[in-house]
């Protein structure tokens, strides 16, 4: 499954807007955004079950998403905060009945 994330690393200042990009090449319906923090595991931020449809996960506050196309699912931080320093993973659901989530390489975001 082809899934890419950009940028791979970013350092930004508190209060600045940030967009993390996720792009898939195989027309999968379901896409997800997680953040990974030590001791907290992976926490679901937002997800989408198809173009034009998004839903909140466990920790949606401070993040926005949109799904105008099947291929792209950007994650936006309108005003970055130090608490949003994390590694962000995008994932797609692949497979039918025996599905799984396939993860992107991740984006390491540091908010100073």
């Amino acid at each position, binding site marked *: 499954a082809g899934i890419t994330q950009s940028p791979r690393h970013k350092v930004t200042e508190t209060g600045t807007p940030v967009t993390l990009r996720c792009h898939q090449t195989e027309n999968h319906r*379901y896409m*997800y955004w997680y953040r990974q923090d030590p001791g907290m595991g*992976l926490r*679901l931020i937002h997800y989408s079950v198809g173009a034009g449809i998004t839903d909140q996960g466990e920790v949606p506050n401070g993040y926005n998403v949109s799904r105008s196309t099947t291929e792209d699912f950007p994650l936006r931080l309108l005003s970055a905060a130090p608490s949003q320093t994390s590694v962000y*993973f995008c994932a797609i659901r692949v497979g039918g009945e025996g599905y799984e*989530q396939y993860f992107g390489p*991740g984006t390491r975001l540091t908010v100073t």
Partner: protein
Amino acid sequence: AQRVTQPEKLLSVFKGAPVELKCNYSYSGSPELFWYVQYSRQRLQLLLRHISRESIKGFTADLNKGETSFHLKKPFAQEEDSAMYYCALSGNNNDMRFGAGTRLTVKP
């Protein structure tokens, strides 16, 4: 609400010893359970899923609905098993929730 609990943040065993990584869940419906693994500097990847009832790299996991558990087991741990392991649950609303993870270290 669905929740996944992995009670052990760290687990250390010697090579050749049995290993069990615990996972408990709470969900009112019929969940699908997964184990994912993240080796050093690699992306998260699926290890096994309960509906397949498969054994991958010697690991197995049985879904126990009575105890709401999905523990991961391997009879003889290998050094290359050292990694971060995550239990995950997918419910009817198409999201997937992960536990906090257990870091397994297999010592020589």
